[in-house]
């Protein structure tokens, strides 16, 4: 169950990546995540937001607060209408990069989250959703 109206943030430039980091931090503090969990979700958000800008050619991020049978968490969605990812299995591997990065973005974001989902269609775009629960 989604608790409140989600924040939606445009992701068009590097400055927007900073804005997303700050928005995620604010919500993480609001729902009472520990400092380590705040750091993990903000870092994961930074990786995914950069992917949206650099690989997806821009898109948006959505930040939602979740309540599910007594637990609280936050869900982040990153969506673009970019070229998509042809080989998801390959893209998830550490060290694989199509843009000269370290190739830790997707795999790293998955490890820093409690739940991770990715959908991508070549030519249509990519959507990544991560969730971090409190406690």
């Amino acid at each position, binding site marked *: 169950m989604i608790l409140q109206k989600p924040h939606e943030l445009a992701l068009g430039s*590097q400055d927007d990546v900073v804005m997303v980091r700050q928005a995620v931090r604010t919500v993480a503090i609001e729902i009472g995540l520990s400092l380590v969990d705040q750091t993990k979700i903000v*870092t994961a958000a*930074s*990786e995914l937001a950069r992917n949206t800008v650099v690989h997806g050619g821009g898109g948006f991020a959505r930040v939602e607060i979740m309540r599910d049978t007594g637990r609280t968490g936050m869900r982040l969605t990153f969506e673009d209408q970019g070229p998509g990812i042809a080989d998801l299995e390959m893209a998830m591997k*550490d060290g694989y990069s199509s843009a000269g990065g*370290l190739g830790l973005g997707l795999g790293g974001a998955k*490890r820093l989250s409690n739940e991770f989902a990715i959908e991508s269609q070549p030519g249509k775009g990519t959507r990544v959703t991560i969730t971090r629960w409190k406690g």
Partner: protein
Amino acid sequence: MERIPILKLGDCLLVTIQVDMHDRLAMTLQDDLTERIVSQRARGVLIDISALDIVDSFIGRMLSNIAGMARILDADTVVVGMQPSVAITLVELGLSLPGIRTALNVDRGMALLAAARHSEDTAV
């Protein structure tokens, strides 16, 4: 243009990162530092990241690049002041910061740079 200040302290350069860095700012710092190492004949670079509340793969790569370029220019790099939550997150992210020396705080970082210079000087 926004820039991160680089201070000269003896034959070392001191950088304190106090803003939430966007990627372009990180690249500018990398370029500025490389230039300053040469123009000031610096032997050590100390980067204080105690005010950074995240280090993602981009910032991690910038730190590794700075250390690598400094090494080629005969300067040592020490990264100091990493917050514990940042260290925990970096390990989970899969970033081990290869080639980067770290110290708990600025004092220990300066001592590490001094020791590195001393052992190099006595070896020559």
